[in-house]
């Protein structure tokens, strides 16, 4: 918790400069623009879910997307992860324009995500679930797998080692052989994070990582998110409704309302933005 406090203090003292590359007060390196969304518009039939939104995500930062229900946050995340294809606008990732891609191709670019409603594989153990996160790194051929011969077994054990590090990191050693279906909600969320981390993503998307958790679980999850960002240098974009958490965790915040962007900046800038206050508290209609 102390780290979270120092971080929010540091942000209030020094807002992010516009140029590439700087170091935050707690020593993290924020790099250049990793992902840039340019004038994204997404429609479902006549419904406009996202209207002309632009923002960027910088290397190494924690970027939050917030907004009231139905603002289009999850749709935005789905656009980033390639699940929806926007009708207008461009998605740029690491300096290249990303054409319309299948979700599994996006995954191979190094983007991993978790879901608002947990999307784990219920029939498999925790270990197998996390191992699925490394599927893209396992290249042994069909025959080697069928005979469980040399490369297949070696690869399995190497990846198991990497997965065990994540299991240690998230402190879920004792449940690694448990079928996921038997776990309580909070642990499922953690396993889902572990699966996303197993892919060693460059950009990690978290869709409401703390929904439905109690204070203690939220603190744990906040700690894990900060540690992931700090130790692995993973860039994180998250959607969250708990304002306290968002303001403490994130370096910069995008605020959406009715599919439009109404605010963008450091937590403190956003907090004092009149449009944001209106969206959350409502305005008197006269």
């Amino acid at each position, binding site marked *: 918790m102390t780290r979270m406090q120092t971080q929010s203090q540091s942000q209030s003292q020094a807002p992010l400069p516009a140029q590439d590359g700087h170091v935050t007060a707690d020593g993290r390196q924020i790099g250049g623009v990793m992902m840039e969304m340019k004038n994204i518009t997404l429609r479902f039939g006549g419904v406009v879910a996202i209207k002309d939104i632009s923002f960027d995500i910088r290397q190494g930062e924690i970027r939050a997307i917030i907004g009231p229900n139905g603002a289009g946050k999850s749709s935005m995340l789905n656009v980033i992860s390639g*699940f929806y294809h926007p009708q207008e606008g461009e998605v740029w990732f690491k300096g290249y324009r990303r054409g319309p891609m299948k979700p*599994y191709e996006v995954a191979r670019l190094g983007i991993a995500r978790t879901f608002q409603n947990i999307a784990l594989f219920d*029939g498999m153990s925790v270990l197998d679930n996390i191992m699925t996160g490394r599927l893209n790194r396992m290249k042994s051929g*069909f025959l080697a797998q069928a005979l469980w011969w040399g490369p*297949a*077994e070696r690869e399995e054990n190497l990846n198991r080692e990497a997965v065990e590090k994540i299991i240690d990191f998230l402190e879920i050693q004792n449940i690694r052989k448990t079928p996921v279906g038997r776990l309580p909600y909070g642990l499922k969320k953690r396993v889902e994070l572990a699966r996303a981390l197993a892919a060693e993503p460059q950009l990690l998307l978290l869709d409401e990582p703390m929904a439905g958790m109690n204070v203690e679980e939220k603190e744990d999850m906040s700690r894990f998110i900060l540690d992931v960002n700090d130790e692995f240098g993973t860039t994180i974009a998250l959607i969250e409704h708990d304002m306290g958490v968002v303001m403490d965790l994130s370096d910069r915040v995008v605020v959406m309302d009715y599919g439009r962007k109404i605010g963008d900046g450091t937590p403190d800038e956003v907090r004092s933005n009149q449009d944001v206050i209106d969206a959350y508290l409502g305005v008197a209609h006269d």
Partner: protein
Amino acid sequence: MIYREAGDFKTSYRDDGQTFPIRLDRWGYYAVLAVAFGIIPFLINDYWASAVFVPLLIYAIAALGLNILTGYAGQVSLGTGGFMAVGAYSVYKLMTAFPEISIVIHILLAGGITALVGVLFGLPSLRIKGFYLAVATLAAQFFLVWLFNKVPWFYNYSASGQINAPERTLLGHAVTGPATSAPAKYLICLVFAFVLAWVARNLTRGTLGRKWMAIRDMDIAAEIIGVNPLTAKLSAFAVSSFFVGIAGALLFAVYLGAAEVGEAFGINKSFLVLFMIIIGGLGSIFGSFAGAAFMVLLPVLLKNVLVGSFGWPTNLAAHIELMIVGALIVFFLIVEPHGLARLWALTKEKLRLWPFPH
């Protein structure tokens, strides 16, 4: 007391990932193998081979195949009978066209041809799921049976429309045709069943198996973590059909010797194999064998009890037998909807603590 992993420490991931991590399981597995390979071949006679062991092993292979598709990859199929027919007719055409080549190669090739046909009929799975896919595979079943009935080239223009397995030898012993001995029939089926079960275990424990299970459990999440649904589903159809094709080839060439497609590979066969995996347990290698054993042994057992012990007339016993088998299937599914494999797993979990309560 004896059955537990306490004290059986694993110091490498290789040890931890083995198929039977508990020592007693490992011994049990080796004991079963020793009996199957070392003792049964010397004792087996024609009755035991044709009533019990050969059909058991062949159906176990078919059940393994369907279990890979339905149990592991979650794609329902009612076309098993049709795919078995593809295996049978492929091996027949190969046997008669290239008599000098080994029968083992013919059987493997028949599996390969069935795999291709399976991929073809698996294409609809990319767009449709569940019941709708079941109906699409049902179409495969009827189409394939119709095809083998109507095109005389497949049965070499024989007058009866039947296919008959010519005699082929392996290592000097006949393995197909009327002169085949019981141990030869048993051993060739056993070797195929053993190797294919081992391959199925290897495939399902590794990358491919995880892709299949990911698609089965939640296809959207699977795609987001980088599984290409096209290759995952079609590879499941290919591997599954390969197994089913080999089962069909063995059923025709080794077990039946002669076959007429509508009778040997009709829709009944599809349901029989589907029952096997449902009763045995979806997504389990052991379950495939258990289900095949249940469906093959139970009628034999009932027949022996009703006719042999009670002295009932054979035709009455045959009807009662059907009713009892049906009732037992319902009973087992109510007791344990996840099949014999889950029942076995629960027993083992209890045994690990026994006789202590915690």
